[in-house]
C-alpha cells in the first residue's frame, strides 16, 4: 500500500538518475606531458564504452567505473603504453562490449563489409535498370493495365514524340539553357 508508491518512486529515481547522469558533464583534470598524450587520451576515452552507463563513451559518462577507467587510461599513457596495449587491457577485462569500434572477426565480417556488399548489389541493380531502360523505346508501349492518366507528356503519338525529340535535341545542341523541361523541375 504505502510501499508501492515508494518503490515506484525509487525505481523512477534510479531511471531518471541513469538518464540525468548524461545531463551532467564531467570534468577530469589530468596533467599530460605532451599535447600528443592528451590527444591520445581523448581518442581512447571516446572509443571505449562505459560498462555501466546507458550507452555513452568514457569521456561522457559520470559513472564511477568510467572515472576509474579514465584514470587508468591516463596512468597507462603516462607509463608509456601504446594504444594497442591499452585496448587489449580493456578487452581482457570487459570484453568486446567495451569497444565502440567492433573488432574485425569472423562474426563481424557481415557488419564491416555489409554496407560495401549492399553498395555493390545496388550498383548491379542500377546498371541493370539503366541497361533495360536504354534498350526500351521511349514511351513504353506495354504501359497499360492500370495506367489511365497520362504520364507527363506521353500523350503524343509516336511520330509527334519523335519530332519533339528532334526539336529538343536541336535546341539542346544550340542553346541548352532554354530547355524548359529541366528548368521546370522540382527534384525535391
Amino acid at each position: 500500500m504505502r510501499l508501492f508508491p515508494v518503490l515506484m518512486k525509487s525505481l523512477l529515481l534510479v531511471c531518471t538518475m541513469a538518464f540525468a547522469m548524461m545531463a551532467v558533464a564531467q570534468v577530469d583534470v589530468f596533467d599530460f606531458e605532451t599535447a600528443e598524450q592528451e590527444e591520445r587520451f581523448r581518442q581512447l576515452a571516446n572509443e571505449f564504452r562505459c560498462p555501466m552507463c546507458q550507452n555513452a563513451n568514457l569521456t561522457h559518462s559520470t559513472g564511477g567505473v568510467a572515472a576509474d577507467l579514465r584514470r587508468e587510461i591516463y596512468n597507462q599513457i603516462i607509463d608509456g603504453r601504446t594504444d594497442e596495449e591499452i585496448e587489449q587491457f580493456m578487452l581482457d577485462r570487459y570484453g568486446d562490449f567495451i569497444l565502440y569500434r567492433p573488432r574485425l572477426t569472423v562474426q563481424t565480417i557481415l557488419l564491416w563489409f555489409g554496407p560495401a556488399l549492399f553498395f555493390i548489389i545496388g550498383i548491379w541493380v542500377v546498371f541493370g535498370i539503366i541497361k533495360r531502360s536504354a534498350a526500351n523505346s521511349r514511351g513504353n508501349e506495354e504501359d497499360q493495365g492500370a495506367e489511365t492518366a497520362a504520364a507527363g507528356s506521353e500523350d503524343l503519338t509516336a511520330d509527334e514524340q519523335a519530332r519533339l525529340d528532334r526539336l529538343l535535341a536541336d535546341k539542346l545542341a544550340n542553346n541548352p539553357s532554354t530547355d524548359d523541361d529541366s528548368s521546370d523541375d522540382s527534384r525535391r
Partner: protein
Amino acid sequence: MIPELGNFSLILAFALSILLGIFPMVGAARQNQLWMGLARPLTAGVFVFLSISLAILAYSFVTDDFSVQFVANHSNSMLPLRYKLTAVWGGHEGSFLFWTWMLGGWMLAVAIFSKSMPTEFVARVLSIMGLISVGYTLFMLATSNPFDRALPLSPADGADLNAALQDFAFIIHPPSLYMGYVGFSVVFAFAIAALISGRLDSAWARWCRPWANAAWAILTLGLSLGSWWAYYELGWGGWWAWDPVENPPLITWLLGAAMIHSLAATEKRGVFKSWTVLLAIMAFASSLLGTFITRSGLLTSVHAFASDPTRGVYILGFLGLIIGGSLLLYAIRAPILKSEFGFGGWSREVFLLANNLILVVASAAILLGTLYPMVYQAVTGGDLISVGPPYFNTIFLPLVGILVLLLGVGPVARWKKTSRAYLIKQLSKVAIAALVIGVALPVLLTLGVPLTTIIVTVLACWVIFSLLRDLQSKIANKPDVWSGLKSLPVSYWGMQLAHFGFVMTMAGGCLTSIYSVEKSVLLDPGESAELGRYTFVFEGIEPVQGPNFIADEASIEVLRDGVYFRHLYPQKQLYTASNTPATHMGIDGRFFRDLFVTLGDARNQGAWSMTLYIKPFVRWVWIGTIFIAAGGILAVTDKRYRRFKVRQVQRAAPVTNKDSQPVVEG
C-alpha cells in the same frame, strides 16, 4: 472524474478509428458512395476525440492532478507552467498519446486538402490511416494508458520532470520530430491506396509530393532540434551520438529523402513507380521501427523510455501486421504498376537512381549497425558487442562524400537523355574552380595542407559552383539577371536551397569535428586559462535559485586577444524534487564558431574544475538544416500542387486500352 473522460474519449477515438478503417475501404471496393463519404466525417471525429484526450491530459498536468499516475511520475507542483504542459510528452504514455494525436492531425489535413482527389482514393487513404490509428489507440488502451490512476493513495506531489527535459528545446523538439515522423504515414497510405487500386499515375505523384515533402521537411527540423538540444544540454559539444534511438529517425529521413527524389522522377517522367511505393512503405516502416526500438527496451540507449517487453511484443506485432502486410501487398501488386522507361546513361533519372542507391545503402548500413549487437547476441548465445560512432562514421562519411560529388552533377543533367559531352562542357570549369579554391582556401588560412579539410572544401565548392553555374546557364538568355531569376520556378529555388543547406550541414559537421578544441582546467577564483585566442578568467561562484532547482553559477570573464569580449555564466544545478544534478553551459554562439564553458565540480578551497570549448562552424550544422527544410517546402509550393478546384473525373475500373487521356490538369 475528468481523467476518466479523457480515457473515455480515447476509447471513442479507438471506436471511430475502427469504423474509419473498415467502411470507406469496403465502400471503395464496392463503389458505395455513402460508405466512402463517411471517410472525412469519421476522420474529423477521430481527431476531435484525440484532441479532447490530449487536452484533458494537459489539464491534469496544469491542475497538478497527481492522482493520475502519469502526471505523478512526470510533474511537480513547483514545475514551471510551460514544462507542466510539455511534460505531457515527457514520458512514454503521454508522448504516445501525443504521437497518436499527430496522426489524427495529419489525417484531418488529408481530409481537408484532398478536394482534387477522387473520392475512392481519399476513402482508401483515410481508411488506411484509420487502421494505423486503431493500432495506436489500442496499444494505449491495452498497455500504456496515460489516464491510469494512482489511487487509492495518490502522492502528495509528483516526481518532477526529468531535469534534462526542463528546457526550451523540449518544448519544440518532440512536437516537430513526431510531426515529421508521423507525417510519413500519409505517403504510406497513398502508396497502399495505389497498390490496392492498381493505379499509379502522374496525378498520384502530384498529389503525393506535397505531403512527402512536408513530412520530410518537418522531420528535418525535428532531427535538427534534437541535435541542437543534445549539444547544449549535455555540455560536451557533441551533436550526434549515433545512439540507437537517434538512428531510426535518421533512417526515416534518409529513406524519405530517397523517396522525395524518386517521387520527383515519378511525377515528371513516370518512372520508378513501384520503387517509389516501396520506399514509401520502407520510410513508414522505419518510423514504426523507431517507435518500437525506443519504447520496447530492445536496445540500450540514454533516450529510451522505461522498457517493458509486453509493450515491445505488442508494437512488434503491430509492426509485423502493418509492414509485413504492406510488403506482401507490394510483392503481389507491384507488377501492375508499369513504369515508363527510356532514359539514357547520363540522364537525370540515372543520377536520381544513384542518389537513391546511396541513401538506401546508408539507411541499410545504419540499420545494420544499430541492430547488429542484438543479432550478435542472439547468434553467439550471449556475447555482447558494441557498435558506436567509430563504426558509423567510417561507413557513413564516405557515402556522404560520394553523394555530395554526385550532387554537383545531378541537377545539371537533363531528363531522359544527356550527353556526357554536355555535362563535361557545363562542369569542367566548375571542377577546376572547385579544386583550385577548395585547396587554396584551407592552405592559405591554416598555412598547412590539411587533407581532410581540403576534401571538405573542394566538395563544398564543387556543389556550390555547380549550383551557380546551373543558375547562370538558365538565365543566360534572359534580358537581365533579375528577370531571369524571377522566371525560375519556385520549385527550382526550393531544390537549390535544399541542396545548398545539405552541403552547409555536411561541411559544418566535418569542419567542426576537425577543428574543435577543448581544455579541462582546475581554476581558483581569480585564475585564468587560455584556449586559442581566448582567455577565460574564473571570477567566482555564486549560488542562484531557480523555480525548482538550486545552482552554483560561475562568472567567467572572456577576453579575446587580451581585450574584453563578454561574460559567461555556466551553472551546476540540482533539481530539488528529484535530487538530480544537471549542467547548464555558458555559451557564446556565433555563425563562425561557438565558445562555451562547462562547469565540473568544486574542489578544495573554492577551486572549480571546468572545461573550455571552441567549436568552429558548428552552427552551420543546424543553419544548413533550416535551408534544407525551407527548400523542401518551397519545392512543393509550386502552383501545380495547389489547384484545388479542379474537375474530378471518376474512374469505375482500371482502363486497359492503349489510349490515355489527360485526366486532371495540374
